[in-house]
């Protein structure tokens, strides 16, 4: 990948290690194992995300990175290890699912907007049903988050009337509206052409600038290199290499990661 070497890794003014105290840990993944049938897709994965950090998980297709993200949010069950996110133990059934959902937002590759609702209703649905906001409050919050993603004029449009990039920004706004403590992004630009990718990445960068704790699985290496505080390279279901962005990009410790960033995949 032709990466301009003058671009400093990590965002200016942010400490790549985040707050030094241990209580700043928002996501803690410890020695997690996950099988799909006989296939071991996560093999003793551990990582930590601190308050306000942006952590990019990168790697080839099939390396387990999306599965890891889905496990963090309880969409996939794990067979070993422990995941604690915002103080909620994800491994223990669905009993604490409501609190988990309150604190963790997720955005998907395929947007997953509700096609039968307007943009505004997509955003207000959970506000009124889950957070018990009044309609007026919910509409105000929807307008607020839509303005944040640059779609203030689209509140009465239906998803199918929007471009992929706009739909993805609505999906980000929908998640953001619930004021989560941490947001998970699962290859959110993989279905978009380069132009639309840029507008979505711009929104994500804004979010990061506002101090949102973010974990993203991405193929956008230039974006990861420029914006992420920490990079986690996954390979064969393991965390193959991880560390502060500038350091791992400048000095890859493993041949696999060197090859991966070298080929620009």
């Amino acid at each position, binding site marked *: 990948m032709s990466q301009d070497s003058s671009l400093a890794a990590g965002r200016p003014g942010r400490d790549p290690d985040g707050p030094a105290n241990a209580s700043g840990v928002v996501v803690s993944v410890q020695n997690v194992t996950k099988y799909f049938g006989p296939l071991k897709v996560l093999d003793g994965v551990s990582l930590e995300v601190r308050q306000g950090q942006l952590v990019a998980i990168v790697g080839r297709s099939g390396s387990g990175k999306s599965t890891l993200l889905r496990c963090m*949010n309880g*969409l996939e069950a794990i067979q070993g290890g422990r995941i604690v996110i915002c103080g909620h133990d994800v491994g223990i059934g669905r009993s604490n699912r409501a609190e988990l*959902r309150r604190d963790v*937002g997720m955005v998907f590759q395929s947007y*997953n907007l*509700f096609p*039968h609702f307007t943009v505004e209703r997509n955003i207000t*649905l959970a506000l009124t049903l889950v*957070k018990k906001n009044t309609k007026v409050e919910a509409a105000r919050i929807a307008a607020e988050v839509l303005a944040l993603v640059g779609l203030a004029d689209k509140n009465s449009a*239906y998803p199918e009337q929007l471009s992929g990039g706009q739909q993805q920004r609505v999906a980000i706004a929908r998640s953001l509206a619930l004021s989560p403590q941490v947001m998970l992004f699962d290859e959110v630009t993989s279905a978009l052409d380069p132009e639309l990718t840029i507008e979505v990445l711009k929104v994500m960068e804004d979010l990061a600038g506002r101090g949102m704790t973010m974990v993203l699985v991405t193929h956008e290496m230039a974006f990861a290199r420029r914006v992420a505080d920490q990079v986690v390279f996954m390979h064969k279901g393991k965390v193959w290499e991880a560390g502060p962005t500038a350091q791992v990009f400048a000095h890859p410790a493993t041949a696999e990661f060197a090859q991966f960033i070298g080929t620009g995949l």
Partner: protein
Amino acid sequence: MNQFTSVHVIYLLEAARWTLLLSLIALLGGGILGLALALARVSRLPVLRVMAIAYIQIVQGTPLLVLLFLSYFGLSLAGYRLDPLVAAGLSLTFYVGAFLGEIWRGCIEAVPRTQWEASDCLGLNRFQQYTHVILPQAVRIATAPTVGFMVQVVKNTSLASIIGFVELTRAGQIVNNSTFQPFLVFLFVGAIYFAICYPLSVASRVLERKLHVAR
């Protein structure tokens, strides 16, 4: 021999009201049962799934005629003498429920899994997921097959004549026995069936277009 007169026309139209009533009972009763069966089919509880599958398999594998015989003659032997309307209404409800249950199960499952995941991640509970996200989308998918099946049911109500229920087809037979003008009588009967079914098909198209716009 009598001529086919307005008296016969009125007799047939009156009989058509019973056909309409039976169809309505079948739609309402079968609809409620069908929704319950469809939800049981996609339930997380294995026992509900198994019971629903067993019911659907058995009823789908049984002719409506046999269901009518069972509820009318069978139950009367067991001491429950049912009115033909009740017996026909029950049979149609059981029959239609089994088919609608399976049709609607398919429609619920046709809503992408990602819609479940997205609404789950927003914190909606399972009931809210169904009522706000999954079922509204399943309804749009279900419109055409449901109406198609209902048109079949309207015509299948003619089977109720076998247990002595005088609905449209049976009334046609009676009129024909007295006038002996089968072409005239049964063309008229056919026209009434068409007049009941055609608006259903039109409504289906309109509804589909409407639901499509608002999606």
